[in-house]
């Protein structure tokens, strides 16, 4: 089964999950890590809890907010193996495309397409409108 983890600094993960639910509806198998909100729980411990839900037959896609950030670094160090895929710098379009991706399509293909789509959604809209009006 394909499962997902959104791991971010602070409450970004919960916030973007709220947007995701509003657009595509409640989705199963989406875990959240809101790093450093609670001083008593380490990111490593939160991750270990999530990983108890992942079997060798599962695929886990981890979305992190910043390449080079501590959350991403911990995911690489503690979680990365053959059935785990980490995508940094994600946005809502990328998240939607991966989570709604066809279960029969290889996850690597879905991620690569979603990254292209996610980048294409970042547009300086004023400039776009100006170009369309010219």
């Amino acid at each position, binding site marked *: 089964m394909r499962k997902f983890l959104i791991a971010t600094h602070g409450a970004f993960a919960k916030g973007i999950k709220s947007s995701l639910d*509003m*657009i*595509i509806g409640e989705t199963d198998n989406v875990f959240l890590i809101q790093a450093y909100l609670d001083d008593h729980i380490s990111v490593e411990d939160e991750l270990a809890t999530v990983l108890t839900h992942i079997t060798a037959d599962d695929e886990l896609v981890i979305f992190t907010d910043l390449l080079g950030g501590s959350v991403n670094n911990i995911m690489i160090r503690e979680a990365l193996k053959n059935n785990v895929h980490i995508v940094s710098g994600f946005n809502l*379009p990328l998240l939607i*495309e991966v989570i*709604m991706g*066809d279960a029969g399509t290889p996850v690597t293909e879905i991620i690569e*397409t979603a990254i292209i789509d996610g980048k294409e*959604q970042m547009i300086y809209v004023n400039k776009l409108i100006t170009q369309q009006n010219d």
Partner: protein
Amino acid sequence: MITKDYIITAAEGIHARPATNLVKLTKNYSSLISIKKGDRTVKLSSLMNILSLGIKGGETISIIIDGEDETSAIIAIDAFFEEELKHL
């Protein structure tokens, strides 16, 4: 292959939520389902593909369905554009 045109009656056009419903609808059929606006045709299986067309209220789009279950798929597509879309 079935091709059918629809006029988008919803004022807001095909925004994120209706586009999501189209993607979910597509998953119920094995046929290849595409949407065409102007000279651009994209697969209905991707939300971003659909949103990239920027479909507004009043515009006409075409749905192209090709596959074994295309007859049942077009019934669901009809229901979407003629009824469901107004409420999204």
